[in-house]
């Protein structure tokens, strides 16, 4: 099944970047798997330059995305699939938050890099923040997009799991059709197995976040001494606006905040160009 997913994803990438020569592009997207808890997890890599590891949000990475494509123009982008997300056949024995963090860390180290810039979206950002807090030497600069991990009883984040299936895309994206396209059936994939795969991706997110998405990150933000870019979509329907200041004030390192217009929670799908541009500007800026 892993082979099938990679093939499908490559097909999706070709469609998404029609200007490029398809054969050259397919060759440039490198895929390999690493074992996490004895389960294969796919890693995609593209581009040259300083390494940037990307941890995806809801739905995982069923296909290479436009945002990653643009980032790979100036960076070596490394996009591992966390256990249970497309590109990995099972969630495996992840029960505690420490299990998840070790899996994320193992995936980063598997790319054989000493140190990287680390970017995450949604719960991928919650994990990225914790990786930076726990293993500070592994991370150079940190990019947190629509970060989860906090919960305020008086201003609760939305429940991404208690949703009618047809309502979920509009909850996650300002442009719901982009979420639908991102998670849709890849060319050549089996529809029944694809349903199983996407359901498992939702389950993996639930395994990590249930019931309210508080990963205890609030108590560890002060350990993040890294230069950090905090990106929020102007129309995020999952994370309340009040959480932005909590992150900005909680992180010990210098925090730069960017608000992207006309984007919901999944900024990488809603505004891939703008996001890639802001991230590249932040990462390419010389350290102060």
């Amino acid at each position: 099944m892993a082979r099938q997913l990679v093939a499908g994803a490559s097909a999706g990438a070709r469609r998404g970047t029609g200007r490029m020569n398809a054969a050259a592009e397919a060759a440039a997207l490198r895929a390999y798997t690493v074992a996490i808890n004895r389960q294969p997890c796919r890693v995609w890599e593209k581009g040259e330059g300083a390494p940037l590891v990307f941890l995806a949000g809801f739905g995982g990475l069923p296909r290479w995305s436009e945002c990653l494509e643009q980032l790979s123009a100036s960076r070596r982008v490394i996009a591992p699939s966390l256990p249970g997300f497309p590109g990995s056949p099972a969630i495996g024995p992840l029960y505690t938050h420490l299990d998840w963090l070790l899996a994320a860390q193992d995936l980063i180290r598997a790319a054989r890099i000493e140190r990287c810039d680390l970017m995450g979206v949604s719960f991928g950002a919650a994990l990225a923040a914790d990786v930076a807090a726990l293993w500070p030497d592994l991370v150079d600069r940190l990019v947190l997009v629509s970060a989860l991990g906090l919960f305020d009883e008086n201003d609760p984040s939305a429940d991404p799991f208690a949703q009618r299936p047809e309502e979920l895309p509009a909850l996650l994206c300002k442009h719901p059709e982009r979420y639908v396209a991102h998670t849709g059936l890849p060319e050549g994939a089996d529809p029944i197995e694809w349903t199983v795969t996407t359901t498992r991706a939702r389950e993996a997110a639930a395994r990590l976040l249930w019931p309210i998405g508080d990963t205890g990150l609030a108590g560890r933000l002060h350990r993040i001494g890294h230069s950090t870019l905090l990106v929020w979509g102007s129309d995020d329907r999952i994370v309340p606006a009040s959480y932005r200041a909590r992150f900005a004030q909680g992180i010990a390192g210098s925090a730069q905040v960017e608000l992207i217009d006309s984007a919901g929670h999944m900024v990488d799908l809603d505004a891939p160009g703008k996001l890639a541009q802001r991230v590249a500007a932040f990462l390419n800026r010389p350290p102060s």
Partner: protein
Amino acid sequence: MNLLWFHLMPYTDLPEDFRDKHRSVWVDIDSRLFDPMRAHALYNDFIDELEYAAELGFDGVCVNEHHANGYGLMPSPNLIASALARSTRRAALCVMGNSLALYNPPLRVAEEMAMIDCISGGRLIAGFPLGTPMDTTFAYGQNPSTLREKYEEARRLILRAWTEPDPFAFNGRFTQLRYVNIWPRPIQRPHPPIWVPGGGARETWAMCAREGYVFAALSYFGFEASRNVLSGYWQEIDRHGRQRNPFQAGYLQFVGVADTRAEAMALYREPAEYFYGRCLRVDPRYTSPPGYTTESSVRLAASQTKPQGVSQFKDRAPSFQEILERGYLVAGEPDEVAARLRQIATDLNVGQLMLLLQFGNMDKALTRYNTRLFAERVMPQIADLFQDQWQDNWWPARAQARAAAPAV
């Protein structure tokens, strides 16, 4: 065949426009619809009804567990069962829930069920449901992705707590205990019979077949919907090299009996419409949390083109005509009800028939009428089924209602 009188204990006063004005009877139902003084009357009526059924010779009475809803008012079925343990003498007490994964530590279930078994003199049937997604994952916040594993661990702990004579240590993933040594212990040895209510999860069928539990198909969508479920279960029984003993299977059926068919239609229409229209008004947001359904069931559902069960009535309630035609409700005069139930039990091969003779907003008088007619004129026509051919190994030996039932 054993006939069990099952009470869901619905809140009977949901407004007529409930379906239009409210999205869900479960999880986020408006608490302002609940009148505690009305519940005072309802609980007492409901317990009276269960006691009445026991008096009339039903083999068992059933209670179950639900949370944060207007569909069934028993967050703790053990409270009702303990009252019944005192007020009944011979009927089996079928506690068709505790949802094992909800209790921390799950020893609470072992203890309370042991108490009920002791108080009742060994008449407990221990129901081990997984629990609905609404109850377990939303109302009680359990992680749907690990719920089954937690349930399975709790099941093993409870069985050991009931059966191991010496204190022991338990090192589970979800529960760790240095000292397990419950008092009281159940009267029934090695432990009370275990029944597992469920639907279409093959994992549940396999557990029942492997461990020797009763699998009870609890669906509100009638005989046809349960036929596939039970046939899957019986195939699992075959695979485990067991006999297709009908007493190892249960089935739930709504029934309305009256002197004539016309009277039955007139009497039971409103309660049936109330149940399907209001009690089953569950927002789909709460029915399928990711991970609750096993991957094999997801695969099976994805390969079926026709929506099953409740999903076909996501956006509207079934009409009374549909409720009857599809067999959700078996209603009529006693002889036709008896013939129909005999046919269903024979076709499905179920020896534990659970009957909902109170449903929806049915009041106490109508419930008693339905119960009495059933006991007097239906029960004698069907109670003998399977009795001579099969031995019931899943019934509390001390619960013998029939031997002492009044002659009718």
